[in-house]
Protein backbone atom coordinates (compact mmCIF):
# COMPACT_ATOMS: atom_id res chain seq x y z
CA UNK A 1 0.00 0.00 0.00
CA UNK A 2 1.41 3.36 -1.00
CA UNK A 3 0.41 6.67 0.58
CA UNK A 4 0.71 10.04 -1.04
CA UNK A 5 0.65 12.36 1.95
CA UNK A 6 -2.27 14.73 1.84
CA UNK A 7 -4.05 12.62 -0.77
CA UNK A 8 -4.62 9.01 0.23
CA UNK A 9 -3.53 5.42 0.01
CA UNK A 10 -3.96 2.67 -2.60
CA UNK A 11 -2.77 -0.92 -3.10
CA UNK A 12 -0.06 -1.83 -5.63
CA UNK A 13 1.97 -4.84 -6.57
CA UNK A 14 5.75 -5.03 -6.84
CA UNK A 15 6.89 -5.05 -10.44
CA UNK A 16 10.41 -6.11 -9.51
CA UNK A 17 11.96 -8.43 -6.96
CA UNK A 18 11.69 -6.45 -3.74
CA UNK A 19 14.80 -6.06 -1.64
CA UNK A 20 16.05 -2.78 -0.23
CA UNK A 21 14.69 -1.24 -3.38
CA UNK A 22 11.63 -2.17 -5.36
CA UNK A 23 9.69 -0.98 -8.36
CA UNK A 24 5.97 -0.52 -8.82
CA UNK A 25 4.38 0.27 -12.15
CA UNK A 26 1.39 2.51 -11.74
CA UNK A 27 -1.42 3.29 -14.13
CA UNK A 28 -3.16 6.61 -13.69
CA UNK A 29 -6.69 5.65 -12.66
CA UNK A 30 -7.92 8.11 -10.03
CA UNK A 31 -6.97 10.36 -7.15
CA UNK A 32 -4.02 8.55 -5.58
CA UNK A 33 -2.53 7.23 -8.80
CA UNK A 34 -2.73 10.68 -10.37
CA UNK A 35 -0.92 12.15 -7.37
CA UNK A 36 1.74 9.43 -7.67
CA UNK A 37 2.27 10.35 -11.30
CA UNK A 38 2.81 13.99 -10.33
CA UNK A 39 5.54 13.24 -7.78
CA UNK A 40 9.05 14.44 -8.47
CA UNK A 41 12.18 12.34 -8.08
CA UNK A 42 13.18 12.36 -4.44
CA UNK A 43 9.62 12.82 -3.12
CA UNK A 44 8.71 10.90 0.01
CA UNK A 45 5.75 8.56 0.11
CA UNK A 46 4.38 6.20 2.73
CA UNK A 47 4.50 2.44 2.41
CA UNK A 48 2.79 -0.34 4.35
CA UNK A 49 3.11 -4.04 3.65
CA UNK A 50 3.74 -6.35 2.00
CA UNK A 51 0.36 -7.97 2.60
CA UNK A 52 -1.25 -11.19 1.51
CA UNK A 53 -0.10 -14.38 -0.15
CA UNK A 54 2.57 -14.28 -2.86
CA UNK A 55 2.86 -16.48 -5.94
CA UNK A 56 3.51 -20.09 -4.86
CA UNK A 57 7.19 -20.05 -5.81
CA UNK A 58 8.09 -23.51 -4.53
CA UNK A 59 5.19 -25.12 -6.35
CA UNK A 60 6.08 -23.29 -9.53
CA UNK A 61 9.68 -24.33 -9.21
CA UNK A 62 8.67 -27.97 -9.01
CA UNK A 63 6.16 -27.74 -11.84
CA UNK A 64 6.68 -29.40 -15.18
CA UNK A 65 6.47 -26.08 -16.96
CA UNK A 66 4.90 -22.68 -16.39
CA UNK A 67 2.62 -20.61 -18.59
CA UNK A 68 2.42 -16.95 -17.64
CA UNK A 69 -0.54 -15.08 -19.09
CA UNK A 70 -0.62 -11.30 -18.64
CA UNK A 71 -3.28 -8.84 -19.70
CA UNK A 72 -2.54 -5.10 -19.81
CA UNK A 73 -1.60 -3.76 -16.39
CA UNK A 74 -1.36 -7.39 -15.21
CA UNK A 75 2.20 -7.64 -16.50
CA UNK A 76 3.94 -5.58 -13.76
CA UNK A 77 3.26 -8.04 -10.92
CA UNK A 78 4.18 -10.90 -13.27
CA UNK A 79 7.41 -9.14 -14.13
CA UNK A 80 8.56 -9.61 -10.54
CA UNK A 81 7.81 -13.32 -10.98
CA UNK A 82 9.64 -13.44 -14.31
CA UNK A 83 12.68 -11.77 -12.74
CA UNK A 84 12.61 -14.33 -9.94
CA UNK A 85 12.26 -17.21 -12.36
CA UNK A 86 15.23 -15.99 -14.38
CA UNK A 87 17.35 -15.54 -11.28
CA UNK A 88 16.58 -19.02 -10.00
CA UNK A 89 16.50 -22.45 -11.53
CA UNK A 90 12.91 -22.74 -12.74
CA UNK A 91 11.28 -25.05 -15.31
CA UNK A 92 10.58 -23.88 -18.86
CA UNK A 93 8.17 -20.97 -19.24
CA UNK A 94 5.85 -19.69 -21.90
CA UNK A 95 4.95 -16.01 -21.52
CA UNK A 96 1.77 -14.80 -23.23
CA UNK A 97 1.08 -11.10 -23.08
CA UNK A 98 -1.80 -9.11 -24.50
CA UNK A 99 -2.59 -5.40 -24.36
CA UNK A 100 -5.23 -3.23 -25.96
CA UNK A 101 -2.94 -1.43 -28.41
CA UNK A 102 0.81 -1.42 -29.15
CA UNK A 103 1.08 1.80 -27.11
CA UNK A 104 -0.33 -0.02 -24.06
CA UNK A 105 2.41 -2.67 -24.06
CA UNK A 106 4.53 -2.33 -20.93
CA UNK A 107 8.21 -3.25 -20.57
CA UNK A 108 8.62 -3.45 -24.36
CA UNK A 109 12.36 -3.01 -23.99
CA UNK A 110 12.58 -6.13 -21.86
CA UNK A 111 10.89 -8.44 -24.36
CA UNK A 112 14.03 -9.15 -26.41
CA UNK A 113 15.97 -10.00 -23.28
CA UNK A 114 13.21 -12.29 -22.02
CA UNK A 115 12.89 -14.03 -25.37
CA UNK A 116 16.64 -14.74 -25.39
CA UNK A 117 16.38 -16.87 -22.28
CA UNK A 118 16.77 -20.46 -23.55
CA UNK A 119 14.03 -21.71 -21.23
CA UNK A 120 11.55 -19.04 -22.34
CA UNK A 121 9.08 -18.78 -25.17
CA UNK A 122 7.26 -15.44 -25.40
CA UNK A 123 4.32 -14.34 -27.54
CA UNK A 124 2.74 -10.90 -27.62
CA UNK A 125 -0.57 -9.75 -29.05
CA UNK A 126 -2.70 -6.60 -29.16
CA UNK A 127 -6.47 -6.28 -29.47
CA UNK A 128 -6.09 -3.52 -32.07
CA UNK A 129 -2.91 -2.98 -34.06
CA UNK A 130 -1.70 0.25 -35.64
CA UNK A 131 0.13 1.12 -38.86
CA UNK A 132 3.52 -0.03 -37.54
CA UNK A 133 2.34 -3.16 -35.77
CA UNK A 134 3.45 -6.38 -37.42
CA UNK A 135 2.79 -8.76 -34.58
CA UNK A 136 -0.24 -10.79 -33.51
CA UNK A 137 -3.66 -9.22 -33.35
CA UNK A 138 -6.40 -10.67 -31.15
CA UNK A 139 -7.21 -11.17 -27.49
CA UNK A 140 -4.61 -12.92 -25.37
CA UNK A 141 -6.44 -16.26 -25.37
CA UNK A 142 -5.84 -16.55 -29.15
CA UNK A 143 -2.15 -17.05 -28.34
CA UNK A 144 -2.97 -20.43 -26.85
CA UNK A 145 -3.64 -21.67 -30.40
CA UNK A 146 -0.06 -20.76 -31.33
CA UNK A 147 1.65 -22.77 -28.62
CA UNK A 148 1.79 -26.37 -27.57
CA UNK A 149 0.50 -26.52 -24.01
CA UNK A 150 2.86 -28.84 -22.11
CA UNK A 151 1.32 -31.57 -20.00
CA UNK A 152 0.85 -30.81 -16.32
CA UNK A 153 1.71 -27.16 -16.87
CA UNK A 154 0.93 -24.61 -14.19
CA UNK A 155 -0.70 -21.41 -15.46
CA UNK A 156 -0.29 -18.04 -13.73
CA UNK A 157 -2.55 -15.26 -14.96
CA UNK A 158 -2.96 -11.61 -13.96
CA UNK A 159 -5.06 -9.03 -15.73
CA UNK A 160 -8.53 -7.52 -15.87
CA UNK A 161 -11.24 -9.78 -14.40
CA UNK A 162 -12.87 -10.42 -17.77
CA UNK A 163 -9.56 -11.43 -19.35
CA UNK A 164 -8.74 -13.83 -16.51
CA UNK A 165 -12.20 -15.33 -16.87
CA UNK A 166 -11.51 -16.20 -20.51
CA UNK A 167 -7.98 -17.42 -19.77
CA UNK A 168 -9.36 -19.76 -17.12
CA UNK A 169 -12.03 -21.01 -19.53
CA UNK A 170 -9.45 -21.68 -22.22
CA UNK A 171 -7.11 -23.47 -19.81
CA UNK A 172 -9.88 -25.72 -18.55
CA UNK A 173 -10.75 -26.61 -22.16
CA UNK A 174 -7.10 -27.46 -22.72
CA UNK A 175 -7.21 -29.83 -19.77
CA UNK A 176 -5.35 -27.75 -17.19
CA UNK A 177 -6.53 -28.72 -13.71
CA UNK A 178 -8.31 -26.01 -11.62
CA UNK A 179 -5.66 -26.35 -8.90
CA UNK A 180 -2.94 -25.65 -11.48
CA UNK A 181 -4.48 -22.34 -12.58
CA UNK A 182 -3.20 -19.48 -10.44
CA UNK A 183 -4.91 -16.08 -10.62
CA UNK A 184 -4.31 -12.80 -8.83
CA UNK A 185 -7.56 -11.00 -7.99
CA UNK A 186 -8.09 -7.31 -7.74
CA UNK A 187 -10.54 -5.83 -5.28
CA UNK A 188 -10.92 -2.60 -3.42
CA UNK A 189 -8.56 -2.51 -0.45
CA UNK A 190 -8.37 -0.20 2.51
CA UNK A 191 -6.50 -1.79 5.41
CA UNK A 192 -4.58 -4.59 3.71
CA UNK A 193 -4.64 -6.92 6.72
CA UNK A 194 -8.08 -8.38 7.11
CA UNK A 195 -9.94 -5.76 9.13
CA UNK A 196 -11.87 -3.32 6.92
CA UNK A 197 -13.81 -5.89 4.89
CA UNK A 198 -13.61 -3.88 1.66
CA UNK A 199 -11.86 -6.66 -0.24
CA UNK A 200 -14.33 -9.46 0.62
CA UNK A 201 -14.88 -11.94 -2.17
CA UNK A 202 -17.09 -14.86 -1.17
CA UNK A 203 -15.60 -16.30 1.99
CA UNK A 204 -12.21 -14.75 1.32
CA UNK A 205 -10.58 -11.44 2.09
CA UNK A 206 -8.45 -10.80 -0.97
CA UNK A 207 -5.84 -8.79 0.98
CA UNK A 208 -5.17 -11.60 3.43
CA UNK A 209 -6.21 -14.87 1.78
CA UNK A 210 -5.06 -13.64 -1.65
CA UNK A 211 -4.61 -11.80 -3.91
CA UNK A 212 -3.09 -14.98 -5.36
CA UNK A 213 -5.57 -17.87 -5.48
CA UNK A 214 -5.82 -21.13 -7.37
CA UNK A 215 -8.90 -21.35 -9.53
CA UNK A 216 -9.86 -24.38 -7.45
CA UNK A 217 -10.20 -22.13 -4.37
CA UNK A 218 -12.53 -19.60 -5.96
CA UNK A 219 -14.40 -21.49 -8.66
CA UNK A 220 -17.57 -21.95 -6.61
CA UNK A 221 -17.94 -18.28 -5.76
CA UNK A 222 -20.69 -16.77 -7.88
CA UNK A 223 -18.62 -13.75 -8.73
CA UNK A 224 -16.47 -12.85 -11.67
CA UNK A 225 -15.82 -16.38 -12.95
Amino acid sequence: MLTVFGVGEAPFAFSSIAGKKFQSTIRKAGTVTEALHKLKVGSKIGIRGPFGKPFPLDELKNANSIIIVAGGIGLPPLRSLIQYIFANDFPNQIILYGARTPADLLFKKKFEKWKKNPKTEMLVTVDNGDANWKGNVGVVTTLFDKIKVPENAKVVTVGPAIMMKFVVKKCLELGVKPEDIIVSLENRMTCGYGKCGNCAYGKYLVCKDGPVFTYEQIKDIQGIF
Partner: protein
Amino acid sequence: MSSVKAYIIKDLEVPPDLEMKNQYVFKRQRILSYNIKSLKIKEHLDVDEKLILIRPCDAIALEYIDKVMLEEPADPQYKILREQGIFAVVNCLKSCDGGFCLSTGGSLLNNGLGDLELTPLKDKEYFVEVLTEKGHNYIQKLGLKEAPKGLGEKVDKMKKDALGNPEQEIIVIPTPEQIRNIPMEEWEKIASGCLGCGFCNYSCPTCTCYAESHVKKDTNNFSKVRVWDACVLESFNLMAGGHTLMPNRSRRFRRRYSHKFENIPEQYGVLGCVGCGRCYKLCPAHFDIKKILSYLAKKGAEVKLPVTASQ
Protein backbone atom coordinates in the same frame (compact mmCIF):
# COMPACT_ATOMS: atom_id res chain seq x y z
CA MET B 1 -14.99 -14.69 38.92
CA SER B 2 -18.42 -14.07 40.35
CA SER B 3 -18.32 -11.65 43.23
CA VAL B 4 -20.07 -11.87 46.54
CA LYS B 5 -20.41 -8.14 46.82
CA ALA B 6 -22.89 -6.29 44.67
CA TYR B 7 -23.39 -2.59 44.17
CA ILE B 8 -25.90 -0.03 43.05
CA ILE B 9 -25.15 2.35 40.22
CA LYS B 10 -27.34 5.32 39.30
CA ASP B 11 -27.83 7.81 36.48
CA LEU B 12 -26.89 5.50 33.65
CA GLU B 13 -28.68 5.15 30.39
CA VAL B 14 -28.30 2.40 27.80
CA PRO B 15 -27.50 4.16 24.50
CA PRO B 16 -30.06 4.04 21.68
CA ASP B 17 -29.62 1.43 18.94
CA LEU B 18 -27.57 3.50 16.52
CA GLU B 19 -25.20 4.65 19.27
CA MET B 20 -24.59 1.22 20.76
CA LYS B 21 -21.71 0.07 18.54
CA ASN B 22 -20.38 3.64 18.35
CA GLN B 23 -19.12 3.19 21.92
CA TYR B 24 -16.38 0.81 20.78
CA VAL B 25 -16.40 0.59 16.95
CA PHE B 26 -16.55 4.29 16.24
CA LYS B 27 -18.56 5.93 13.49
CA ARG B 28 -15.58 8.14 12.88
CA GLN B 29 -12.13 7.59 14.28
CA ARG B 30 -8.79 9.26 13.68
CA ILE B 31 -6.13 6.66 13.12
CA LEU B 32 -3.18 8.96 12.68
CA SER B 33 -2.30 12.56 11.97
CA TYR B 34 0.62 13.90 10.01
CA ASN B 35 2.28 17.02 8.76
CA ILE B 36 3.15 16.91 5.08
CA LYS B 37 6.16 19.22 5.54
CA SER B 38 7.89 17.55 8.48
CA LEU B 39 6.33 14.12 7.77
CA LYS B 40 5.91 13.70 11.50
CA ILE B 41 3.28 11.03 12.04
CA LYS B 42 1.30 10.68 15.24
CA GLU B 43 -0.69 7.53 15.81
CA HIS B 44 -3.84 8.04 17.88
CA LEU B 45 -3.76 5.32 20.47
CA ASP B 46 -4.88 7.37 23.42
CA VAL B 47 -8.10 6.00 24.89
CA ASP B 48 -9.54 7.00 28.24
CA GLU B 49 -10.89 4.42 30.59
CA LYS B 50 -14.66 4.58 30.21
CA LEU B 51 -17.80 2.68 31.01
CA ILE B 52 -19.45 1.06 28.00
CA LEU B 53 -23.02 -0.12 28.37
CA ILE B 54 -24.09 -2.95 26.10
CA ARG B 55 -26.77 -5.63 25.93
CA PRO B 56 -26.26 -9.41 26.24
CA CYS B 57 -26.52 -9.72 22.43
CA ASP B 58 -23.81 -7.05 21.97
CA ALA B 59 -21.56 -8.96 24.35
CA ILE B 60 -21.85 -12.04 22.14
CA ALA B 61 -21.22 -9.89 19.07
CA LEU B 62 -18.07 -8.52 20.71
CA GLU B 63 -16.69 -12.03 21.01
CA TYR B 64 -16.96 -12.33 17.25
CA ILE B 65 -15.50 -8.84 16.63
CA ASP B 66 -12.56 -9.82 18.84
CA LYS B 67 -11.87 -12.79 16.59
CA VAL B 68 -11.57 -10.49 13.59
CA MET B 69 -9.99 -7.37 15.06
CA LEU B 70 -7.63 -9.00 17.55
CA GLU B 71 -6.35 -11.68 15.21
CA GLU B 72 -2.66 -10.88 14.63
CA PRO B 73 -1.80 -8.37 13.38
CA ALA B 74 -4.42 -6.83 15.67
CA ASP B 75 -6.20 -3.55 15.00
CA PRO B 76 -4.26 -1.23 17.36
CA GLN B 77 -7.10 1.20 18.13
CA TYR B 78 -9.61 -1.55 18.81
CA LYS B 79 -7.17 -3.51 20.94
CA ILE B 80 -6.52 -0.57 23.24
CA LEU B 81 -10.18 0.21 23.54
CA ARG B 82 -10.90 -3.38 24.54
CA GLU B 83 -8.18 -3.16 27.17
CA GLN B 84 -9.21 0.24 28.52
CA GLY B 85 -13.00 0.04 28.26
CA ILE B 86 -15.12 -1.28 31.13
CA PHE B 87 -17.79 -3.36 29.44
CA ALA B 88 -20.99 -3.49 31.43
CA VAL B 89 -23.63 -5.90 30.13
CA VAL B 90 -27.17 -4.80 30.95
CA ASN B 91 -29.60 -7.69 31.34
CA CYS B 92 -32.93 -7.55 29.52
CA LEU B 93 -35.78 -8.33 31.84
CA LYS B 94 -38.11 -8.69 28.91
CA SER B 95 -37.60 -9.20 25.22
CA CYS B 96 -37.11 -6.08 23.12
CA ASP B 97 -39.24 -5.38 20.05
CA GLY B 98 -38.05 -7.43 17.12
CA GLY B 99 -35.31 -9.24 19.02
CA PHE B 100 -34.81 -12.96 18.39
CA CYS B 101 -31.68 -13.63 20.45
CA LEU B 102 -33.04 -16.95 21.73
CA SER B 103 -33.11 -18.25 18.15
CA THR B 104 -29.46 -17.36 17.59
CA GLY B 105 -28.30 -19.09 20.76
CA GLY B 106 -28.34 -16.05 23.01
CA SER B 107 -30.35 -15.14 26.07
CA LEU B 108 -32.07 -12.16 27.67
CA LEU B 109 -29.45 -12.40 30.39
CA ASN B 110 -25.73 -12.04 30.27
CA ASN B 111 -23.76 -15.24 30.14
CA GLY B 112 -20.66 -14.26 32.06
CA LEU B 113 -19.34 -11.85 29.45
CA GLY B 114 -17.97 -8.36 30.06
CA ASP B 115 -16.51 -6.81 33.20
CA LEU B 116 -19.74 -5.97 34.99
CA GLU B 117 -23.27 -7.29 34.83
CA LEU B 118 -26.07 -4.81 35.39
CA THR B 119 -29.70 -5.59 36.13
CA PRO B 120 -32.23 -2.76 35.92
CA LEU B 121 -33.88 -1.86 39.22
CA LYS B 122 -35.73 1.31 38.35
CA ASP B 123 -35.27 4.18 35.92
CA LYS B 124 -31.51 4.68 35.35
CA GLU B 125 -30.64 2.57 38.39
CA TYR B 126 -28.95 -0.81 38.23
CA PHE B 127 -27.82 -3.67 40.40
CA VAL B 128 -24.14 -4.29 39.68
CA GLU B 129 -22.34 -7.64 39.79
CA VAL B 130 -18.61 -7.66 39.28
CA LEU B 131 -17.20 -10.18 36.81
CA THR B 132 -13.56 -9.24 36.35
CA GLU B 133 -10.68 -7.63 38.16
CA LYS B 134 -10.91 -4.69 35.78
CA GLY B 135 -14.58 -4.30 36.67
CA HIS B 136 -13.73 -4.55 40.36
CA ASN B 137 -11.09 -1.83 40.18
CA TYR B 138 -13.42 0.46 38.29
CA ILE B 139 -16.17 0.04 40.88
CA GLN B 140 -13.68 0.76 43.66
CA LYS B 141 -12.61 3.94 41.91
CA LEU B 142 -16.21 5.11 41.57
CA GLY B 143 -16.77 4.37 45.24
CA LEU B 144 -20.19 2.87 44.62
CA LYS B 145 -22.62 2.06 47.37
CA GLU B 146 -22.91 -1.62 48.21
CA ALA B 147 -26.30 -3.15 47.50
CA PRO B 148 -28.44 -3.75 50.60
CA LYS B 149 -28.70 -7.29 51.94
CA GLY B 150 -31.52 -9.26 50.38
CA LEU B 151 -31.52 -7.32 47.11
CA GLY B 152 -29.41 -10.04 45.54
CA GLU B 153 -32.16 -12.59 46.02
CA LYS B 154 -34.73 -10.20 44.61
CA VAL B 155 -32.59 -9.67 41.52
CA ASP B 156 -32.07 -13.41 41.11
CA LYS B 157 -35.84 -13.82 41.11
CA MET B 158 -36.26 -11.06 38.50
CA LYS B 159 -33.73 -12.82 36.29
CA LYS B 160 -35.41 -16.16 36.74
CA ASP B 161 -38.76 -14.67 35.81
CA ALA B 162 -37.26 -13.10 32.69
CA LEU B 163 -35.82 -16.44 31.58
CA GLY B 164 -39.03 -18.24 32.39
CA ASN B 165 -41.21 -15.98 30.31
CA PRO B 166 -39.16 -14.35 27.56
CA GLU B 167 -42.17 -13.77 25.28
CA GLN B 168 -40.09 -14.14 22.19
CA GLU B 169 -41.00 -15.91 19.01
CA ILE B 170 -38.52 -18.62 17.98
CA ILE B 171 -37.51 -18.68 14.33
CA VAL B 172 -35.48 -21.11 12.25
CA ILE B 173 -32.00 -19.88 11.34
CA PRO B 174 -30.90 -21.09 7.88
CA THR B 175 -27.79 -23.27 7.71
CA PRO B 176 -24.82 -22.34 5.50
CA GLU B 177 -25.96 -25.04 3.05
CA GLN B 178 -29.44 -23.58 2.89
CA ILE B 179 -28.04 -20.11 2.20
CA ARG B 180 -25.89 -21.56 -0.59
CA ASN B 181 -28.89 -23.29 -2.08
CA ILE B 182 -30.78 -20.05 -2.70
CA PRO B 183 -30.55 -19.13 -6.39
CA MET B 184 -29.81 -15.56 -7.46
CA GLU B 185 -33.36 -15.07 -8.83
CA GLU B 186 -34.66 -15.75 -5.36
CA TRP B 187 -32.34 -13.08 -3.88
CA GLU B 188 -33.53 -10.62 -6.48
CA LYS B 189 -37.06 -11.22 -5.30
CA ILE B 190 -36.15 -10.99 -1.61
CA ALA B 191 -34.04 -7.84 -2.02
CA SER B 192 -36.48 -5.94 -4.18
CA GLY B 193 -37.39 -2.66 -2.51
CA CYS B 194 -34.11 -2.43 -0.57
CA LEU B 195 -32.78 1.14 -0.70
CA GLY B 196 -29.16 0.09 -0.34
CA CYS B 197 -28.90 2.73 2.38
CA GLY B 198 -26.72 0.86 4.87
CA PHE B 199 -28.79 1.31 8.02
CA CYS B 200 -28.87 -2.46 8.51
CA ASN B 201 -25.08 -2.48 8.57
CA TYR B 202 -24.73 0.60 10.75
CA SER B 203 -27.11 -0.71 13.38
CA CYS B 204 -25.67 -4.23 13.38
CA PRO B 205 -23.45 -5.18 16.31
CA THR B 206 -21.39 -7.58 14.19
CA CYS B 207 -20.79 -5.28 11.20
CA THR B 208 -17.33 -3.74 11.49
CA CYS B 209 -16.35 -2.78 7.94
CA TYR B 210 -14.84 0.65 7.52
CA ALA B 211 -13.60 3.06 4.87
CA GLU B 212 -10.68 5.44 5.21
CA SER B 213 -9.80 8.86 3.93
CA HIS B 214 -7.11 11.46 4.41
CA VAL B 215 -8.84 14.51 5.84
CA LYS B 216 -7.37 17.99 5.64
CA LYS B 217 -7.08 20.03 8.83
CA ASP B 218 -5.10 22.92 7.40
CA THR B 219 -2.59 23.43 4.59
CA ASN B 220 0.01 21.10 6.08
CA ASN B 221 -1.88 18.93 8.52
CA PHE B 222 -3.92 15.89 7.64
CA SER B 223 -5.50 12.97 9.43
CA LYS B 224 -6.17 9.46 8.29
CA VAL B 225 -9.74 8.89 9.41
CA ARG B 226 -11.91 5.83 9.27
CA VAL B 227 -15.69 5.79 9.15
CA TRP B 228 -18.33 3.07 9.14
CA ASP B 229 -18.71 1.44 5.77
CA ALA B 230 -21.57 -0.80 4.65
CA CYS B 231 -21.45 -3.77 2.29
CA VAL B 232 -24.89 -2.93 0.91
CA LEU B 233 -23.61 0.39 -0.46
CA GLU B 234 -22.71 0.61 -4.11
CA SER B 235 -19.41 2.27 -3.19
CA PHE B 236 -18.39 -0.57 -0.87
CA ASN B 237 -15.99 -2.27 -3.20
CA LEU B 238 -16.06 0.05 -6.12
CA MET B 239 -12.68 0.31 -7.80
CA ALA B 240 -11.09 2.83 -10.14
CA GLY B 241 -12.87 2.95 -13.49
CA GLY B 242 -16.17 1.85 -11.95
CA HIS B 243 -15.18 -1.83 -11.59
CA THR B 244 -16.82 -3.79 -8.82
CA LEU B 245 -17.20 -7.42 -7.86
CA MET B 246 -20.69 -6.74 -6.46
CA PRO B 247 -22.47 -5.09 -9.35
CA ASN B 248 -26.06 -4.96 -8.17
CA ARG B 249 -28.18 -4.45 -5.10
CA SER B 250 -29.46 -7.99 -4.76
CA ARG B 251 -25.91 -9.33 -4.83
CA ARG B 252 -24.95 -6.92 -2.08
CA PHE B 253 -28.07 -7.81 -0.14
CA ARG B 254 -27.14 -11.47 -0.46
CA ARG B 255 -23.58 -10.72 0.60
CA ARG B 256 -24.84 -9.37 3.91
CA TYR B 257 -26.76 -12.56 4.62
CA SER B 258 -24.19 -14.98 3.28
CA HIS B 259 -21.45 -13.34 5.33
CA LYS B 260 -23.45 -13.63 8.55
CA PHE B 261 -25.08 -17.02 8.02
CA GLU B 262 -22.66 -18.86 5.73
CA ASN B 263 -19.11 -17.45 5.87
CA ILE B 264 -18.76 -16.46 9.54
CA PRO B 265 -20.28 -19.74 10.84
CA GLU B 266 -18.01 -21.79 8.60
CA GLN B 267 -14.91 -19.79 9.39
CA TYR B 268 -15.32 -19.00 13.07
CA GLY B 269 -17.88 -21.54 14.26
CA VAL B 270 -20.29 -18.83 15.48
CA LEU B 271 -23.29 -17.15 13.88
CA GLY B 272 -22.62 -13.72 12.41
CA CYS B 273 -25.95 -12.53 13.81
CA VAL B 274 -26.87 -12.23 17.47
CA GLY B 275 -30.59 -11.69 16.90
CA CYS B 276 -30.76 -8.12 18.18
CA GLY B 277 -33.39 -7.20 15.58
CA ARG B 278 -31.95 -3.69 15.12
CA CYS B 279 -31.56 -4.06 11.37
CA TYR B 280 -35.31 -4.50 11.23
CA LYS B 281 -36.11 -1.66 13.63
CA LEU B 282 -33.94 0.82 11.75
CA CYS B 283 -34.63 -0.25 8.16
CA PRO B 284 -36.57 2.52 6.40
CA ALA B 285 -37.92 -0.02 3.92
CA HIS B 286 -39.11 -2.33 6.68
CA PHE B 287 -37.16 -5.46 5.77
CA ASP B 288 -37.84 -7.93 8.56
CA ILE B 289 -34.80 -10.15 9.08
CA LYS B 290 -36.89 -12.70 11.00
CA LYS B 291 -39.22 -13.20 8.07
CA ILE B 292 -36.32 -13.29 5.63
CA LEU B 293 -34.43 -15.90 7.66
CA SER B 294 -37.48 -18.13 8.00
CA TYR B 295 -38.06 -17.84 4.27
CA LEU B 296 -34.40 -18.60 3.46
CA ALA B 297 -34.43 -21.65 5.71
CA LYS B 298 -37.59 -22.90 4.00
CA LYS B 299 -36.44 -22.17 0.44
CA GLY B 300 -32.92 -23.38 1.07
CA ALA B 301 -34.26 -26.72 2.22
CA GLU B 302 -36.53 -26.98 -0.84
CA VAL B 303 -34.27 -26.10 -3.75
CA LYS B 304 -31.52 -28.57 -4.28
CA LEU B 305 -29.12 -26.99 -6.68
CA PRO B 306 -25.51 -27.84 -7.36
CA VAL B 307 -23.58 -26.40 -4.44
CA THR B 308 -22.17 -22.95 -5.11
CA ALA B 309 -20.84 -20.47 -2.58
CA SER B 310 -22.15 -16.94 -2.47
CA GLN B 311 -20.35 -13.72 -3.09
